[in-house]
């Protein structure tokens, strides 16, 4: 049973929440059976392709959408009846939604003004926020005079000024160019750690999710497919979709030879056996054919007769820090192998035969989709 103390450790509890738009034939299930607990002070990310429901879930937390089923609790309190302006939750909108008729300072101070705080406090907090996001000199400017990156920082400051318990960020970096984006990612992470506010971050960029998050929930078509730390999601994806969505991956269909606890032995075409991890709750039987994934950097190049699998080189793509070598396996399936570009190794020739060694225990067996 969940105790009261445990309850308050969780900032947000989402219990079996569902959301449907429309009715009857045109009903669209945006959220299906969402179960989630976000901890205080956590940088939590909702990751998924567009249309997966991540933004809807964010809006449910903010109070702009009401769930058709399930419960939403913030700091242990059921917020079903609470309007957005009653929840201590603030949003950084995707298009920033800065008030065009107000200056930067007025935008930032808006929340506090609505809460009726004294002028002196508003001024002090506004200054503090502008300093935090490094926009000190821009107080009197209007949003139309700012660049995209500057607007984003103002939106952030505006949402932080009322010192909410939870900050919701709806793909805030998607409109920025690459370099600015990387800068802002570091900034956001730093801010989150400094302020200790729970961040719920929505993005479709898996790299962003991996670099910034404490935990990630991968969503697809209204459901959460997997919840875990970036390492767990990356190294131990439980479904094909998650494996494909995050980074590059190779899929091998192999037969189970033996099962022991949370690992199994799989048979390779060459007859060799390699160990693999099992996704939680999975219990395959001997003789089953399962899908297993392995990341490109967990395979190494070797001579054709050594290694686990023979392969033919298709081509090699240079990526600066490493090289991706595209191979074709004996059964015709493609395979990607990643190799760091130190040691001054030369690329293998196109069409040449090589061998692939799979790191032991790196294979992850997936649940059926």
């Amino acid at each position, binding site marked *: 049973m969940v105790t009261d103390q445990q309850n308050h450790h969780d900032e947000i509890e989402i219990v079996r929440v569902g959301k449907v738009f429309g009715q009857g034939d045109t009903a669209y299930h945006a959220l299906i059976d969402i179960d989630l607990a976000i901890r205080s002070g956590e940088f939590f990310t909702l990751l998924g392709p567009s249309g997966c429901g991540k933004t809807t879930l964010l809006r449910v937390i*903010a109070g702009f959408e009401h769930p058709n089923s399930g419960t939403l609790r913030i700091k242990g309190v059921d917020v079903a009846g609470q309007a957005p*302006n009653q929840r201590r939750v603030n949003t950084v909108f995707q*298009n920033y939604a800065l008030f*065009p008729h107000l200056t930067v300072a007025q935008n930032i101070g808006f929340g506090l003004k*609505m809460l009726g705080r004294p002028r002196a406090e508003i001024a002090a907090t506004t200054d503090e926020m502008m300093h935090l996001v490094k926009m000190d000199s821009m107080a009197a400017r209007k949003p*139309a005079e700012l660049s995209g990156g500057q607007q984003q920082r103002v939106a952030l400051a505006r949402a932080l000024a009322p010192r909410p318990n939870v900050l919701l960020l709806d793909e805030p970096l998607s409109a920025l160019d690459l370099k600015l984006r990387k800068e802002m990612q570091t900034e956001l992470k730093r801010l989150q750690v400094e302020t200790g506010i729970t961040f719920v971050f929505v993005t479709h960029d898996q790299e962003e999710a991996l670099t910034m998050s404490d935990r990630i929930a991968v969503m697809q078509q209204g459901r959460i497919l997997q919840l875990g730390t970036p390492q767990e999601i990356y190294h131990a994806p439980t479904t094909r979709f998650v494996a494909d969505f995050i980074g590059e991956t190779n899929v091998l269909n192999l037969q189970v030879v033996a099962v022991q606890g949370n690992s199994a032995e799989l048979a390779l075409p060459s007859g060799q056996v390699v160990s693999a991890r099992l996704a939680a709750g999975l219990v395959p039987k001997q003789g089953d054919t399962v899908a297993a994934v392995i990341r490109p950097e967990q395979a190494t190049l070797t001579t054709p007769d050594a290694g686990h699998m023979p392969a033919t080189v298709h081509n090699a793509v240079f990526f600066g820090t490493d090289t991706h070598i595209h191979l074709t396996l004996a059964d015709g399936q493609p395979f990607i192998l990643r190799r760091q570009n130190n040691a001054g190794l030369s690329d293998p020739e196109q069409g040449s035969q090589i061998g692939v060694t799979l790191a032991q225990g790196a294979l992850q067996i997936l649940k059926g989709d």
Partner: protein
Amino acid sequence: MNRSTHGWKWLLVSPALLVLVFAASGPLLIVAVYSFLSPGNMGGVAWEFSTEAWFRVFFKRDIFEPENVALNADFLAVFQRTLWLSFQTTVICALLGFPTAWFIATRPPHRRMIWLFLITVPFWTNLLIRTFAIQELIRNNGTINTLLQWLGITSRPIDMMYTDFAVLMGMSYVFLPLMVLPLYAAMEKLDFRLVEAGYDLYASRMQVLRHVILPLVKPGFIAGSILVFIPSIGAYVTPSVLGGGRSMMVGNLIALQFGQGRNWPLGAALAMLLLVVVVTALIFYLRVTSRETGERHG
């Protein structure tokens, strides 16, 4: 565009311009000229230069002691009434028109057309018919009085006709759609994500209205106000029918000079005065809106 087509353009546009100059703009010049002439014996003008008409617009001369000059209180009362009634009309139209425009703008898109149609129909109805309709409601044997007496609320009819109140009712009724349409246009373009942001930042509904919505629809609001105010000050039919001789506005005063008043130059001078006020209001409006759009685009 080469030279020959340029000539073409002028040829095309000139018939319209000719008609307009002849029958609209040109006559205005004549009015200006007439305001400086003397009244003729049986109406019309005598071709003698005189500033008496302009003098009479603002001042009164004692018939027996011409040195006694006082402000023309009667005319002043008319001017005052005109401005005051027009202002009140604008306020009433704003108070009723804003929620109406908001209501239409927040209907689902496929239903909006119907509501727009509904608000437009009275606007296209003949001004006279609309004024007549109001008269039928408020006159002593009219609908409202009959209803009140039938319900036992009053025993005698309430005199509503031929008062400032009647004119105000009439003008508000007639000009209301003119406030709604520009407001609606501005509200339709409103980015509701900004409204959401307002709520997200703890604003109550009234605070969102005051701090987010109103500032953002201000151009529509100003346009609507001008569209009501300017025709109001130039109104003739409505005050004529509903106000009679007792609640005169500038328009009626002008018409009087060409009827019973038999003082064409005075009428011309008053007309010029009205024109100047209207043009000033228009210029003011243009200044304000260009400043707004200038500010908006930074």
